[in-house]
């Protein structure tokens, strides 16, 4: 619903079986709905089992609402789900039931949230969807591609958000680099003054300053890439442990490395050029402080 949907984006929620299992409890209290035959079997995610302090073979009571009625089930398997990045921070209980058991628990007959159809010929998905929608009674069919498009909008927004943040980060890094290169240039002031006084040409001085700037930028980007790797590894170690998952949270890709190196070298050269220009437009005596 509304609030849920709002928070869904906020927390990158991916609601699986919305409201299907609203409550679970363990303990010795007798179930209010006695099973007719053997206890229904359920699968529990490892995080849920750990949180509830139960394991395979134990029993558990489930209800569609905190008000009950409660249904006794047996834990057939504790499994490790493949989590989507959006799920890792969520602390909800995760239970898998056979469809008839879930329907019985919900007391909504044979109603389902969705039906997944595997086609013999996937190329005819559009045609099948059109045929299904032509005769639809209270449902609507979508191709997987359509659904992916509809459901990916949140991720697209998050990607745009990340891109915007990275523009700000690049801007900050650029100014930082320019400031450092300017300071380096100031440090070179006296040296440049002496070089010019002993007769070294402007061109050679400019080349030397540019070379120094490029060297500093290259060295800086190498150290930066090393730091980036270390930070990325630290983020992965920390969050994998924090969320008990094997998901990769941060990734340093070759494309990223290329971008970082190219940017820092370009900025270094630009800052070097600006510094050289400033240095060469001051009298040599002024540069050596006379």
């Amino acid at each position, binding site marked *: 619903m509304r609030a849920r949907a*709002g928070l869904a984006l906020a927390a990158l929620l991916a609601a699986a079986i919305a409201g299907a299992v609203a409550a679970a409890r363990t303990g010795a209290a007798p179930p209010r709905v006695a099973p007719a035959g053997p206890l229904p079997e359920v699968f529990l995610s490892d995080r849920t089992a750990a949180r509830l302090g139960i394991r395979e073979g134990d029993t558990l009571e489930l209800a569609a609402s*905190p008000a009950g009625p409660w249904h006794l089930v047996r834990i057939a398997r504790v499994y490790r789900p493949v989590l989507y990045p959006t799920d890792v921070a969520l602390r909800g209980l995760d239970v898998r039931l056979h469809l008839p058991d879930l329907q019985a628990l919900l007391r909504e007959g044979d109603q389902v949230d969705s039906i997944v159809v595997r086609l013999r010929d996937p190329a005819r998905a559009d045609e099948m969807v059109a045929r299904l929608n032509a005769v639809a009674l209270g449902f609507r069919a979508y191709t997987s591609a359509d659904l992916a498009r509809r459901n990916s909008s949140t991720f697209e927004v998050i990607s745009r958000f990340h891109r915007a943040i990275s523009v*700000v980060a690049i801007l900050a890094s650029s100014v930082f680099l320019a*400031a450092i290169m*300017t300071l380096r240039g100031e440090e070179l002031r006296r040296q440049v003054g002496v070089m010019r006084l002993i007769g070294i040409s402007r061109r050679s001085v400019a080349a030397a300053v540019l070379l120094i700037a490029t060297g500093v930028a290259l060295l800086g980007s190498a150290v930066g890439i090393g730091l980036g790797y270390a930070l990325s590894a630290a*983020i992965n170690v920390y969050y994998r442990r924090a969320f008990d998952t094997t998901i990769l949270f941060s990734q340093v890709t070759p494309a990223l490395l290329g971008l970082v190196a190219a940017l820092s070298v370009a900025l270094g050269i630009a800052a070097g050029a600006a510094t050289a220009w400033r240095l060469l437009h001051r009298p040599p005596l002024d540069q050596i402080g006379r």
Partner: protein
Amino acid sequence: MGPLGFLAARSLLRNPVRTALVLLGLSVTGALLLDMTMLSRGLEASLGGVLGRLGFAVRVVPRGTLPFSSSAEIPDGERLAAEIAARPEVAAAVPVVAANLYVRRGGARFPSFALGVPGGGTGAYAVLEGRDLPAAAAGAGPAPGSPPADPPIVINRNMARLDGVRVGDVVVLSAAPEPFVVRYAAPRAFRVVGIADFYFDLATQRSVALATVDLRRLQGLPRGAASLILVRVTAPARTGDLARWIQARDPRVDALSIQGFLDRAAAQLTYFRQFSLILGTISIAVSFLLITAIVTLSLGERLGEIAMLRAVGFTRARIASLVLLEGLVLGAASLPGAFALGLLISRNLDAILRSAPSVPENVHFFTLTTAAALRTVALVLGTGTLGAVYPATIAARLGVAATLHAEVLS
């Protein structure tokens, strides 16, 4: 202003181009820090602001849930609301039912969020145009012998705008998306009496408020249950006691204060917390490095002046304080730029995030609160000061005679 503050402030003028560049760098990193501080608790602050405006101190929900976060209901919510309303510290307890309905417009039906309330004046939404539902709407049918009138509803601005509906118009609602799904009750006509702000509406979401009795009739369900009970108190100081009493009275529910609501919602907002923590830390680290680099290099250029100050009578501690103050002043000088740039960037970032589906119109991701502003100021000033610790140590350890000698030789 003492000599240290005076000198530190004037140090900004020493090399204007360099200072401008450093301040620009610090402004950008400070802006990022402000944005991350705003983001880390922005959604909670924004949500809290909206919740505070509604004026309900306590929300009673099915245990373990958030308002309207699942289809779970409080089975005898209306009775529980009546019991809560009887408490002396309670001004009102409003049982609310939430459901998905469909609005028929021409040949199409649009999903709509429906709020079932006992009557008008509950405060669950704010009427902007027309009037509220009648106070006695709950269960009030037409007088015997008179023709059956269309029950009243209040609609939101989206519905008015998207469907061209005005006060006095008739809209048809049903509980089912298709007319021939027989499981649900038949469609029913309602007369629009008002247009309201429903606070948590999505950008294109249609919302309606109607009497609970009418909503239940549409759904084909009996009365009694509630999705949520909104409680308005007369004594805010006793909110905690009231919440504890409600939970003791019915263990199937949670009674959430606004802070409790936000705490529970915050558990689902870890993404933004972690994201802002990482980026905020990086921006602090970059500011720290920038200040350390600039102050250290600047110090290296004026060792003679520092030695002069020591010779004139400034103690080591005063010299260290002067350098620390220079870091602080750099941080402080970057604050106006950081705030201006930060607010500008945050507006754009907020617009990006709010363009996602399922984001309520009144909720923002980046919220400038006093706490966020103060935290940013403290972090920037602290980073400025800490960034100057290394050069301050160098300055304090400076040998006066040796430095003066070296300066003459250079």
